[in-house]
C-alpha cells in the first residue's frame, strides 16, 4: 500500500503552554507505574481475602515490615521500624544496580535477562580478590574488589553484546545460558572447589577487613532498642546512588548515551546518522554488565563479606527486570522501584511471621505490576518496539510491541500530540 502521509496540524505557538505539556508528560510517565502498583495491590488484597486472610493485617505488615509505617497493634507493635528500614536499604542496593543493568540495554532495544549471571560473576571476582589479598590495606583493597567485580560483570555482559552484534544470537537465550554457567561456576567454587571454606560447603572465607564497606551505623551500643550491629545498611547504597546519577548523566548528557538511545529508538536513523549499531550494542552490554558486576562487588564488600551460593540462587537479577520496567528505565524511577521491591521483599517475612499470610503474596504483586505495565508498556514509555508501517487513520494508534531486539525497525505512526491538547 502506498503510505499516505498523514500530516498533522502544525503546532500553533501559544496554543499549548509548556507547563501543560510537561504536566501531561509527567502524568503519562508516572501514571501507569503508580496505577500498576495500585492495581497489583488490589489484586493481592482480593487473593488474600478469598483465601480467608485479612488483607488489612497483611498490608499493614507490608507497610510496617517494609518502611516502618503503621507498626501498631498486637501484631506489629513489637517491630522496630528503623531495623526494617535498614533492611530495606540493604535489599534495595543490589536492585538499583541490577535495575540499571536491565534498563540501559532496554534503552538500546536489548532485553538483558542476564543481570543475575553478571552479578554472580562480579561477586565471584570481587570475593576472590578480597580473600586472596585479604592483608592489603583498605584504600587499595576496597577499590580493587569493586573494580574487579565491575570488570567481571562487564565481561560477562560483553559476551552477550558481542554475540548479538556479530551473530545475531538472541540475547534472551544467551543471557539465560550465561546465567546458568555463572551459577554452576559459583557452585563449583563453593562445593569442593577452590573457594569453599574448609568443612563449610556453600560459603567461602571472609574477605579481608580492608575490603569491607563501612556500615552507616557502627559501635557497640543500642539504638532504637536494638544493638547497633543489626543495622546492616551499608554505604553501598551511596555507590548505587552514584551509579544511578552516572546512568542519568550517561544517557542524558553524553554523546554515547545519546547514541544508545538513538539505536534503541530507531536503528535505521542511527545508521543514517553515522552511528555504528554493533559497536553501540556491545558497549551497552559492557556497561550493563559492569553495573550488575558492581552489584556483586558491593554486596560482597558491604553485606555478606563472603561468597555464598545466594549470588546465584536469589532472584535479584530477575527482580531487576520488574524494577527497570516499573521505574520506566529512568534513574530516579529505578531507585524508587528498587526501594518498593526491597520493601516488599523485607516485609514479606514480617507479614508471614506476624499475620500468617504467605510471603509469596509479594511475588504475585510483583507479577501483576509487570503485567499491567506490559499491557500498556509501549504507550507509556515509548520504548519503541513496533514495526507498524501504517495505521489506518481513524482508529487510535494501536499499542504494538515486538521483541525488543529487532535490528531493523520503524516508528509507529502515532497521531501528533501537541495539536491534540487544543
Amino acid at each position, binding site marked *: 500500500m502506498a503510505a499516505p502521509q498523514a500530516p498533522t496540524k502544525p503546532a500553533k505557538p501559544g496554543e499549548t503552554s509548556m507547563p501543560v505539556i510537561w504536566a501531561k508528560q509527567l502524568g503519562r510517565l508516572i501514571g501507569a507505574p503508580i496505577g500498576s502498583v495500585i492495581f497489583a495491590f488490589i489484586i493481592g488484597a482480593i487473593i488474600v481475602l478469598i483465601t480467608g486472610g485479612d488483607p488489612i493485617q497483611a498490608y499493614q505488615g507490608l507497610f510496617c515490615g517494609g518502611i516502618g509505617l503503621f507498626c501498631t497493634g498486637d501484631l506489629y507493635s513489637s517491630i522496630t521500624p528503623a531495623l526494617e528500614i535498614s533492611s530495606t536499604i540493604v535489599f534495595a542496593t543490589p536492585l538499583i544496580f541490577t535495575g540499571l543493568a536491565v534498563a540501559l540495554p532496554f534503552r538500546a532495544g536489548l532485553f538483558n535477562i542476564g543481570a543475575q549471571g553478571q552479578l554472580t560473576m562480579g561477586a565471584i571476582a570481587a570475593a576472590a580478590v578480597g580473600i586472596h589479598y585479604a592483608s592489603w590495606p583498605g584504600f587499595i583493597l576496597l577499590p580493587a574488589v569493586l573494580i574487579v567485580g565491575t570488570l567481571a560483570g562487564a565481561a560477562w555482559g560483553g559476551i552477550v553484546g558481542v554475540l548479538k552484534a556479530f*551473530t545475531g544470537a538472541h540475547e534472551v537465550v544467551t543471557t539465560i545460558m550465561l546465567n546458568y*554457567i555463572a551459577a554452576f561456576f559459583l557452585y563449583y567454587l563453593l562445593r569442593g572447589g577452590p573457594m569453599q571454606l574448609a568443612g563449610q560447603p556453600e560459603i567461602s572465607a571472609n574477605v579481608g577487613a580492608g575490603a569491607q564497606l563501612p556500615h552507616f551505623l557502627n559501635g557497640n551500643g543500642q539504638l532504637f532498642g536494638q544493638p547497633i550491629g543489626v543495622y546492616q545498611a551499608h554505604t553501598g547504597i551511596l555507590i548505587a546512588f552514584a551509579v544511578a546519577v552516572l546512568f542519568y548523566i550517561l544517557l542524558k548528557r553524553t554523546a554515547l548515551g545519546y547514541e544508545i538511545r538513538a539505536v534503541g529508538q530507531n536503528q535505521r536513523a542511527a545508521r543514517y546518522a553515522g552511528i555504528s549499531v554493533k559497536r553501540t550494542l556491545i558497549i551497552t552490554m559492557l556497561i550493563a554488565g559492569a553495573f550488575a558486576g558492581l552489584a556483586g562487588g558491593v554486596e560482597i564488600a558491604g553485606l555478606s563479606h563472603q561468597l555464598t551460593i545466594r549470588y546465584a540462587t536469589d532472584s535479584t537479577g530477575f527482580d531487576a527486570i520488574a524494577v527497570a520496567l516499573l521505574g520506566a528505565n529512568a534513574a530516579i524511577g529505578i531507585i524508587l522501584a528498587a526501594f518498593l521491591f526491597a520493601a516488599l521483599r523485607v516485609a514479606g517475612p514480617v507479614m508471614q511471621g506476624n499475620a500468617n499470610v504467605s510471603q509469596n503474596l509479594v511475588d504475585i504483586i510483583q507479577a501483576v505490576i509487570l503485567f499491567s505495565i506490559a*499491557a500498556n508498556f509501549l504507550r507509556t514509555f515509548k520504548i519503541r518496539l513496533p514495526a507498524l508501517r501504517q495505521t489506518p487513520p481513524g482508529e487510535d494508534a494501536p499499542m504494538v510491541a*515486538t*521483541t525488543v531486539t529487532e535490528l531493523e525497525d520503524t516508528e509507529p505512526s502515532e497521531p501528533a500530540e501537541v495539536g491534540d491538547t487544543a
Partner: protein
Amino acid sequence: MQLIGQILHLLITPALWQTTLESGVLLLLPALGGVISERSGVVNIAMEGMMLTGAFAAVAVAEVTGNPWISTLVAIAAGGLMAVIHAVVSIRFRADQIISGVAINIFAFGITAFLNSKITNFQGFNPVKPSAQLPYLHIPILDKIPFFGPIFFDQNIIVYVGLFLLVAVQFMLFRTRLGLRIRAVGEHPQAADTAGINVYSIRYGSVIASGLLSGLAGAFLAIGITNVFNDGMTDGRGYIALAAMIFGKWTPIGSFVACLIFGLGTSIVANNSTLNVSRDLLSMLPYILTLVVLAGLVGKSIPPAADGQPYTPGSE
C-alpha cells in the same frame, strides 16, 4: 587415559541413557509447545510458569482424587489457563511478549507457592501415593533386552506419550492444513490474512496449545518423575526448553535432539560417580554447548519471520 576409560564405561551404562530420555522428554513437552506457539508468531518464554502451574495442579488434584489421569487432565488445563493469559495480553493487547512471559513466570511461582502454603498450612502436600502417580511401564520381555531394554521399554508412560506427541506435532506442523496455516501466520500474517485465514484464532490456539503441553510436562514432573510439589520445582526447565527449541531451529525433531543433549547433561551429572570431575562443572556443559551453537559455529538459527510481532489487520 583413565578418564577416557571412565567415559567409555559411563557411555555404556543403560541408566545414563534411561535418565537422558526421561529428562529429554520432560523438556520436550514444553519445547513442542514453544515450537507451536512461536511458529504461529508468538514468542513464548512462559513455558516455565505454565509447567509449574501444571505441576501444582497435578499434585493438588492427586491429593484429592488419588487419580493420576484426572490430575493430569487438570494439570493440562491449568497450563492452558496460564497460556490464555499470555495469549490475551500479547495478542489482544499486543503487549511485549517477552515481558508478558516473564510476568507469567513470576506470577505462576507466586500463586502456586502461595496456594501451596495456604492449602496445606505451610506443610506442603504429602508425597503423592503410588496409585496416584503416572505409572512406569515395564514392557514385558522387551525390557529384558540388554542395554536397550531399560532405555526404551522401562519408562514412564508420559515418555511414550511425549514421543508420540513429537511425531504428531512434527506431522501436524509440516503435513497438515492446520500446520500449514500456523506456519503461514507465523511467517507472514498479512499474507495469511489476505488468503482468508483468521490470524487471531490460529495464534490463540497455538499459544493455548503450548500451555496444554507445558501443563502436561508439569504433571509428568510432579506426579510422574517425582511425587511431590515443591515451590518453584520446575527450576528453570521451561527456559531450557525455550533454548532447546531455538537450538532445534523451531522444529519438533530438532528440539528433541537439543532436549536430549540437555537431558544427557543432567544424566551425566547424575551418573558421574564413575567420573572424577566436579558435578557442577559438568553441569555447565550443555549450557556452554548451546551458547557455542547459538554463536553460529554450527549454523544460524532463524526464527519465524513474524515471531514476536503482534498482528494488526490492514497493516503492511
